[in-house]
Every structure is written in structure tokens, then in C-alpha cells.
């Protein structure tokens, strides 16, 4: 044996040991169920050694030695053992690759800061520099690597890695589902259980709002996507009602105590009022229930021997004070809700819940009071006047309810516009859009359209057509298709493009079904809040050990897409903002995708839907991979990002009306969720007419969900909020004179308080955004 040493993969040089070879060969025989082969293994190892000797290399490498083992096993006619050995080698190679990849990732997490590391800023809501943020990233990256190597069907893993498709939230692949619309009323009734204890049904608006936050936080620990309350107005109304009753009785007792010198007035009023409630079912209310008041008046005059007139005076004192105290308590409750949702961390303490609140159509005085004060608190901002990043707020717009002068909640619509013009929220969802209206049944708030997170929409239900509702349901998982890639590969041949698209749709359907199968095997107890507290539809019928398969069928499986605009450029030379022909083609492409998800819904009896993908990390990821693959193609791969879903590119100058008109028809097609934005060139808080006009035009054109983007800057020194160029209009200081100005922008539907947390692609996108209507009108 010429060589006494061997070179390992990591470059280390170790002493050559023939026994290691015989042991490996013996293991291969064992794996092939061939016992008693020690002698033969020994003989084959000697043969490997002697080949090495003949070759005479100074320092043979371990890979080469393993090649020789394979060769010898084949030559000596032990195919089963050879096969086992090859499998073992490839398994080891896979594990090594995983290990190396993880090592690289861990090094990155451990030693680089989010400032320099783009993937630490992959998600702008996570602070990648904190201990918990790092720990979360370790877990997330390991899970992704493991699932790709060992769980996903290889063709799905390969398509994901190559950038043909993107499997969202891959790190949670085997663990959970995306999001839920929480029915907060159902959750509150009878109380619910948190991690370590039971919470009684709340009795005051301050507790209602606090528990709403806890519900969002708890559910966020069970799911990876956005958490939403579908009925915030109806839910909080109960808290306002209870607070009013309490305050009314207190004030009535005060009036009596002072005027009639009854030190026990509080107890007296309480029992007197409770008796009326018991016997008549009537209660004191903000509106002032005449029948209740009459009963109470006669009870008071009977008890205290006073005239009904005097009793009425007490009542009106009590009502007046109770009303203003309730108003104040509601404002404080909403203020603390905003503070909680921007500070209460979830998910290993690395990020606040991705919370959303839907409201706008409850016309009760209590629901209106809750919404009014939420909007006022949002407009006022957080403690330092900052724009609240969470929750995403969604104002439901509906003819006959709040859209036109004279309608009961028109004042709230106006207030919502004013608030959004200053704070970017609420967004506006349109109940009257032709694809939302059919599901709506007046008097059934569960049929009001809602959205969660940045855009997810759930309403139809093939699993249970009688429950085509928004409450207690959500998305299970979604996967997006790289449309520009398909278009580039088609080389202008539309048939080739469609063939590629159909292939990708097949792949996505199969992959979503694979993931659904995995999710279905989870047990109710894996979701202590989502399933354990009956948040998800029908989950209250499950025992902790039951599989969640049947109830998950209320959820949706969504196929999304990125870069329709770039795909159209690749196919025709122009995107849909540039030519009507491209718009026609764009609609044909998206219609084809929708037809497929509809067909799959029928075939599988599962809710497949088409999603206009929000694309924070993905917009950059696809573009980067394609740039490496195809080089710089003008109008296609020449930017650091692909355009979101069906949007007209942000860099393209287009008037607002035209953007709205062109994007609206895609809303009708993307039943899994959508949003359109209009960028304006100034501070719309100074021009409320313009803001409202744009919202009204969105509704007119059939937009499902929309919002206005504008810059929101804040000077922490003087508290000014608005647009700040170089100098703060509030106090006249320059940025260099003190603490940096905060610049809030919207990124895939979420607000981000500092541009530092934008990833590279989104920074590039933000810089390119054209306020609609600048010169060179097309």
C-alpha cells in the first residue's frame, strides 16, 4: 500500500484505515438483508486497497475510495449490496448538503446584521437583529431546509428551488395553516381559555378590546399567516353596551344618593334595574329605550315616593353622563388596543401578530361608537404621535349603509377617509362589488365580505355551500407561479406559454394537495387555540386527538401569481398599462388560471381559489433568479423586483383613473384575494376631496379592495406627521439636526415604520414608485 493517508471532504488528512472500508461494505450487506458476510466484506476491502495501491496516488480522496467500493461490489456481483451502498452514499450526500447549507445560514444569522443581510430583512415585520428574531430565523431556516430535502416531493422541491413556483411559508409546511377570520362574538360568549387559564366573558369595553388583542395573539401562535377579526364593530358593540349599562346605573345611583340622601342607592338601583331586565327583557341603552325608561320611572317613583317627572330628571342626568363616560372609555379602550397590537409580541417574541380588523356596517349606536373611536385613536397615532403599523384596518363600504349622504354610517365613511388620508389605514373593501354582493344577506354579518392580512379573501364554500361565510375560515396554504419565467421560455409563442402555464397549474394543484394531506393529519390538540377554543369553523366538534381533516375543508387552497406585467412584456412587448391588446391578453391569462382553480374546486370538493399574491420576499426572489438565468431583458428582468400580481408596474406613469379601470377586472377573477393601490403625489390629509374621490371611483369600477398610498413621515422631535422632505414643516429642523425622521410606507399590504427594514427588492420598488399622473401621460 503506497498511500498511508487519505484526504477527507473537508480537506483534513487522516491515516488510511482498511477496517473502515470493510465496515462500510458489511453495513451495505446488512442493509441488503445478506447476513454473515464479514469475511467477504474483509476480502472486498482488501481488493479496494490493492486497487488504490496499483493506482499509486499519494493522497487519494475519500470520494474516490467510495467510487472504488461501488465498482468492486458490482464487479464481484453483489448488486443488492452495491445498490444499498449507493443509496447510503446519496443519503449521506443529501445530509451533508443540508448540513453545509444550514451551517452557512447559521453563520449568516449569527454573525451578520440585518443592515447588511438582505434575507434577514425578508420579512419587514421581524426585527432580524434581536435574540428572539435570530432564534426564530434558526428554526425557520432549518425547517425549510429539512422540508425541501426530505418532505416535499422532489419535483415540488426542485420547482420551488428553481423559481418556477414559490411555496409560501415553507418553514411551516408540516405544522399549520395560514390564517383565520375570527368571529370575536362567538369566542367571547361564555369566555375562552388562554394558555394557562380561563378568561371569563368580558363585561366592559376595556376588557373587550384587551381580549380581542389576546385572541389575535393566541391564534397567531397557532398559524403562520395574518390574524383577523371579521366583526370588530359588532363584537365591540357588546362591550360598549355593557359599559353603558354599568355607567348608567352608577350615575342614576349618584343622582339619587345626592338628591334623596340614600346611601344605599347603588344597590337599590342595581336590583331595581336588574328586576326590570329580568321581567321585561329591556335594558338601558345608548339610544334610550323608552319602554325601559318608563318601567324604571314607575319603579323609582314607587320606591322613593317621587314624581315621575323627578325620576325622569334623574334618568336624563344618568343617561347624559353615562353616554359621555362610555364614549371616553371606548376611546381609551381603542387607544390601548392600538398600543397592544403594536407592542405585544407573538411567535417566540419576535414579531407582533399580523392583525387585521374588519368593520363599517354595524349601524347600532354602540357599534358606531366603537368604530368612531377606533378611527379617532388611529388618527391621533400612538404615544409619540406615530402611525400605528398594526392592525390593518378594513372599512366595509356599502350602498345604503355608509356610502352616501344620509345613510346611517356615512359619517364613519367620511371619518375613515380622513383617517386613512393621514395614516394609510383603513383600507376599503367594497361589499357591492359584483363578486361580493351575491353572498351578502342583510342581517347576517357573517356574510359580509372581509379580508385578512394584506388581502386574503374567503367566502364561497364548496365543502358546505350553506355556509358560504367569512367567519371562522381562512386560507390553508398558497403557492405562486412565476409568470414572467413562463413567458420568457415561450419565446413569443402563446401556445407554448399556455402549455407551460397549464403544467405549472398542474404542479401547484398537486403540491397544494400534498400539503393539504400533511395538514389534514394534524390533530386538534396541535392547535390549542385555533381548534381548542373553537375559533375555526366546526372545530368545537373535535376532540383533542381527532384529525383536523374534515374541518380544514372549510379553508382555501390558493394558487397565486407574480409579474403579470413582465409576462405580458415578454409575450407582446407591452404590459397592460401600455396597450389594450395586452390588457385583453392579461385578462385571458388570469381567466384561464381562474377556470382551473374553479374546475379543481369541483373535482376535489375543496376550495381552490386564485390569489393576487402579495410578494414581499418573492418579488425580488423570482426576479433575481431569472436575471441570473436570462440576463437583463428590458422591461422584464431589468429591475430588482417583479411587479406584484396583476398590478400595473409602479414605475409606469399612469393616471389614477386608468390604473383603477385596468386593474378592476382582475379583482373579479382573483377570488382568493386582491388589492389595488393608487399612489398620490402629496399629503391627502390636506386634500380630503381628492382622497374620497379616488375611493368612490374604485367602488364605481368594481374594485374589490383598495387603498391609497402616500408618504407618511413623522418627526419624533416635534411630533409633526405629514410629508417631510429635507426640512420638517412642523419645526423647521433638518434631519441631520437630531433624531431621524420616521418614514412609514406600505409593503405588501403591511405598513413598515422604517425603510431600513425593507428588503433590497422592495427598496428598489419603493424608489421607483411613480405618483400617478406625472408628465408623459399615456
Amino acid at each position, binding site marked *: 500500500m503506497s498511500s498511508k493517508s487519505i484526504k477527507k471532504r473537508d480537506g483534513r488528512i487522516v491515516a488510511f484505515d482498511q477496517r473502515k472500508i470493510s465496515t462500510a461494505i458489511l453495513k451495505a450487506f446488512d442493509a441488503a438483508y445478506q447476513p454473515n458476510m464479514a469475511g467477504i466484506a474483509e476480502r472486498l476491502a482488501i481488493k479496494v486497497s490493492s486497487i488504490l495501491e496499483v493506482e499509486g496516488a499519494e493522497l487519494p480522496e475519500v470520494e474516490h475510495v467510495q467510487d472504488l467500493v461501488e465498482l468492486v461490489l458490482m464487479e464481484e456481483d453483489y448488486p443488492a449490496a452495491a445498490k444499498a451502498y449507493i443509496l447510503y452514499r446519496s443519503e449521506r450526500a443529501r445530509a451533508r448538503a443540508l448540513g453545509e447549507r444550514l451551517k452557512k445560514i447559521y453563520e449568516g444569522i449569527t454573525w451578520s446584521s440585518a443592515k447588511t443581510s438582505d434575507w434577514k430583512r425578508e420579512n419587514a415585520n421581524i426585527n432580524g437583529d434581536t435574540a428572539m428574531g435570530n432564534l426564530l430565523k434558526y428554526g425557520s431556516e432549518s425547517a425549510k431546509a429539512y422540508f425541501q430535502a426530505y418532505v416535499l416531493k422532489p419535483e415540488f422541491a426542485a420547482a420551488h428551488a428553481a423559481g418556477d413556483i414559490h411555496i409560501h411559508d415553507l418553514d411551516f409546511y408540516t405544522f399549520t395553516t395560514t390564517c383565520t377570520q375570527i368571529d370575536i362574538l362567538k369566542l367571547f360568549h361564555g369566555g375562552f381559555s388562554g394558555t394557562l387559564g380561563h378568561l371569563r366573558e368580558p363585561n366592559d369595553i376595556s376588557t373587550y378590546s384587551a381580549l380581542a388583542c389576546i385572541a389575535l395573539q393566541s391564534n397567531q401562535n397557532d398559524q403562520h399567516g395574518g390574524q383577523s377579526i371579521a366583526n370588530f364593530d359588532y363584537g365591540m358593540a357588546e362591550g360598549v353596551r355593557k359599559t353603558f349599562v354599568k355607567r348608567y346605573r352608577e350615575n342614576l345611583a349618584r343622582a339619587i344618593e345626592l338628591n334623596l340622601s340614600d346611601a344605599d342607592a347603588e344597590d337599590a338601583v342595581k336590583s331595581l334595574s336588574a328586576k326590570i331586565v329580568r321581567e321585561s327583557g329591556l335594558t338601558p341603552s345608548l339610544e334610550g329605550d323608552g319602554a325601559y325608561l318608563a318601567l324604571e320611572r314607575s319603579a323609582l317613583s314607587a320606591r322613593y315616593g317621587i314624581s315621575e317627572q323627578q325620576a325622569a330628571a334623574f334618568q336624563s342626568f344618568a343617561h347624559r353622563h353615562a353616554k359621555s363616560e362610555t364614549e371616553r372609555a371606548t376611546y381609551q379602550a381603542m387607544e390601548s388596543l392600538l398600543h397592544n397590537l403594536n407592542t405585544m409580541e407573538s411567535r417566540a417574541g419576535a414579531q407582533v401578530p399580523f392583525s387585521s380588523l374588519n368593520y363599517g356596517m354595524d349601524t347600532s349606536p354602540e357599534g358606531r361608537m366603537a368604530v368612531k373611536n377606533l378611527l379617532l385613536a388611529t388618527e391621533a397615532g400612538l404615544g409619540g404621535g406615530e402611525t400605528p403599523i398594526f392592525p390593518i384596518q378594513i372599512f366595509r363600504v356599502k350602498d345604503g349603509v355608509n356610502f352616501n349622504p344620509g345613510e346611517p354610517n356615512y359619517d364613519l365613511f367620511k371619518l375613515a377617509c380622513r383617517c386613512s388620508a393621514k395614516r394609510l389605514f383603513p383600507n376599503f373593501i367594497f361589499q357591492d362589488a359584483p363578486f361580493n354582493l351575491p353572498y351578502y344577506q342583510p342581517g347576517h354579518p357573517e356574510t359580509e365580505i372581509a379580508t385578512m392580512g394584506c388581502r386574503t379573501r374567503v367566502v364561497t364554500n364548496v365543502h358546505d355551500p350553506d355556509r358560504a361565510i367569512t367567519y371562522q375560515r381562512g386560507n390553508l396554504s398558497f403557492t405562486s407561479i412565476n409568470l414572467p419565467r413562463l413567458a420568457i421560455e415561450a419565446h413569443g409563442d402563446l401556445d407554448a406559454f399556455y402549455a407551460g402555464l397549464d403544467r405549472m397549474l398542474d404542479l401547484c394543484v398537486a403540491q397544494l394537495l400534498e400539503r393539504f394531506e400533511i395538514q389534514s393529519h394534524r390533530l386538534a390538540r396541535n392547535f390549542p387555540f385555533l381548534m381548542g377554543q373553537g375559533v375555526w369553523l366546526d372545530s368545537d366538534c373535535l376532540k383533542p386527538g381527532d384529525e383536523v381533516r374534515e374541518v380544514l375543508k372549510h379553508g382555501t387552497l390558493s394558487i397565486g401569481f407574480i409579474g403579470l406585467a413582465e409576462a405580458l412584456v415578454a409575450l407582446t412587448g407591452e404590459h397592460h398599462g401600455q396597450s389594450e391588446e395586452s390588457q385583453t391578453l392579461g385578462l385571458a391569462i388570469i381567466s384561464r388560471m381562474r377556470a382551473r382553480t374553479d374546475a379543481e374546486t369541483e373535482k376535489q370538493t375543496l376550495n381552490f381559489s386564485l390569489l393576487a399574491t402579495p410578494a414581499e420576499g418573492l418579488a425580488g426572489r423570482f426576479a433575481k433568479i431569472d436575471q441570473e438565468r436570462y440576463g437583463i431583458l428590458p422591461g422584464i428582468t431589468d429591475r430588482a423586483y417583479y411587479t406584484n400580481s396583476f398590478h400595473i408596474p409602479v414605475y409606469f406613469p399612469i*393616471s*389614477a*383613473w386608468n390604473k383603477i379601470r385596468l386593474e378592476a377586472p382582475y379583482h373579479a377573477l382573483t377570488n382568493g384575494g386582491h388589492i389595488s393601490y393608487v399612489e*398620490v*403625489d*402629496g*399629503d*391627502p390629509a*390636506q*386634500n380630503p*376631496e*381628492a*382622497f374620497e*374621490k*379616488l375611493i368612490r*371611483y374604485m367602488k364605481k369600477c368594481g374594485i374589490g379592495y383598495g387603498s391609497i398610498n402616500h408618504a407618511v413621515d413623522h418627526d419624533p422631535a416635534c411630533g409633526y406627521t405629514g410629508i417631510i*422632505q429635507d*426640512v*420638517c*414643516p*412642523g419645526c423647521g429642523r433638518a434631519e441631520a439636526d437630531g433624531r431621524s425622521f420616521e418614514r412609514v410606507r406600505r409593503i405588501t399590504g403591511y405598513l413598515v415604520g422604517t425603510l431600513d427594514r425593507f428588503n433590497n427588492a422592495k427598496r428598489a420598488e419603493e424608489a421607483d414608485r411613480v*405618483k*400617478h*399622473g*406625472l*408628465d408623459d*401621460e399615456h
Partner: protein
Amino acid sequence: MNTEATLRIAGTVQDSIVDGPGLRFTVFVQGCSHSCPGCQNPQTHDPNGGSTVFLDALLSQLDGNPLTDGLSLSGGEPMEQAEGCVLLARAAHQRGLDVWCWTGYLFESLLLGTAAQQSLLQEIDVLVDGPFLLEQRSLALPWRGSRNQRIIDVKKSLKIQKTVIYQSL
């Protein structure tokens, strides 16, 4: 309208929300003799700069946007191209739009100005007047750049023969 009429402009902006209430179609005319130090648009001063466009072209831009609430004449100095501007403003009024105009001159002196300037005033709803004075600059003022500038309700002012400050701010 005279289809040959032209205007020398620096550019146009659709959907502006900073040149008056609602969504505005803003025309920045080219050429301004005031030369205010610190002017936001110094590139619009040269009377030979920018480009000459037919009013028809501007009007088709205006007509192409169903959301426009009003025409805003900015610049540059609209009063130094009053002949063209008055035609544009009149056309805007015929379309039911309102007209805002920014000028470096004072309203009172424009009342005694050229015939064209006087007839342009007749077609203006709101005039923001006066030169930009750097020492009176404020970023917090709506629709104007320095504190000396006034927002004048021209219709009312002409009616009662007295300068009336525009109210609905």
C-alpha cells in the same frame, strides 16, 4: 376655440393633489420674469425653454381623465401668457371644472393689467398671488410657499370690488 392657439409649457401633471382641492390637471407654463430667489421651479423661468403645445393637445389630456375636478395654472408665470391661458381656462369652465391660478403679481395690479390679464382674471376662481419670498417661506401652508402669498376668491372679489380671501380651506 382657435385650434391654432398654443401655449409654451414646462409640463403637465395629472391627478395632482397639491395644486388645489380635489384632483387637478396642472399646467406648468414656461417663462417667468420674477426670478424669486429659492423658487421651486427655476427651470420654468426661461421664456425660450420648455416646449410649445397646441391648446387642443392640452384639452385632450384634460378630457382624457374623468376624475379631474379642476384646472390649475402654475408655472412659470401664467399671467405672462394670459392670451393662451384664458382660452384654456374658459374651456375648463365650459367643462364644469374650476380654475386655480398661481401668479407672482399681485391681484390688485393685475386688475389694472393688460386686457388679456384682465380677461384671464374673469376665468379664474381662485388666485394664489404674490412673489415667493424666501424669508417668509413655510412648508406648513396649504397651496402656497411663503406667508406673504394670498389665496384669493376671485369671483367674489370681482363682484364686490374688494379683495376677498378664499374661505373653504
